[in-house]
């Protein structure tokens, strides 16, 4: 049975991927919003985002709103596919529980 992707499975990164997957495919999410929702520090969030970026799952876009720098994060097509695979892997593990129960009963 396939185990879920370890890059995504880390709790903070999993929540990050879930939040980024919840928005439209073309959407970019504000760094500050992610930090506040996940109750992380700037540094902590940056470390996890870097790991996901290294894996090719997300991309960070730095821009300016007026004179203030803003960072937006978006899921890449590869990241979206990896997250879908992660969910599929979880569902497979859950279904295996049912299969075991059926085997035990027979």
């Amino acid at each position: 049975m396939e185990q879920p992707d370890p890059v995504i499975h880390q709790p903070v990164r999993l929540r990050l991927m879930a939040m980024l997957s919840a928005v439209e495919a073309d959407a970019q999410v504000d760094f500050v919003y992610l930090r506040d929702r996940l109750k992380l520090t700037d540094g902590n969030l940056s470390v996890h985002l870097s790991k996901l970026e290294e894996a090719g799952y997300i991309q960070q876009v730095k821009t300016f709103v007026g004179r203030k720098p803003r960072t937006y994060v978006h899921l890449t097509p590869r990241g979206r596919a990896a997250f879908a695979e992660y969910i599929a892997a979880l569902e497979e593990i859950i279904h295996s529980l049912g299969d075991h129960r059926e085997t035990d009963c027979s």
Partner: protein
Amino acid sequence: MDLTPQAAQQTLEDIRQLMRQTRAALAAEGADWILMLWGLIWIVAFLGTQFLPRQAPWFWWLGVGVGVLLTVSLMLGLRRWRKVHSESLRRLSWRIFGFWALLITYACLWIFLWMPPSNLKLNLYLVTLAMFASVVMGLWLEARLLLVLSLAVTALALAGYFFWPAYYGLWMAVVGGGSLLGGGLYIRLKWR
């Protein structure tokens, strides 16, 4: 890493809940302020309708004018500080704006064509039309709270019209304006 089926089930539920919460929080961006604003406008205008019936049209023209102006300003201001940037979201916002602008135009046209015979009927017509539009928004955006709130206010407005017509303004200030204000406060406190 060996994940048990129970742990996988829990993880999956957590993910789904977080995705639902994220969608709700982002969809509600600005909705809290808009609902609270219109709740306050309804409270003031309906109280005016009840206690100063001769000046009622002024309360409504002024209230709706200020409401539309503040709502548009709020939406424009929000665009700058949006938590999510997306071309599809931007297009959706314009479609929603177009829908409300068209609805207001049609509402005025229908009033002009079939002027309701009394202020009470005119009032009920506008409230139920605005709530009908909110029901459509609720279905369109899959916003259950908006759907339930709009249906509840419609039912309460009809109850006030049929059972307590003499106190309709007071009734709508409390249950209509109160529901909008409460709905906005709920979103602000729970969905952030």
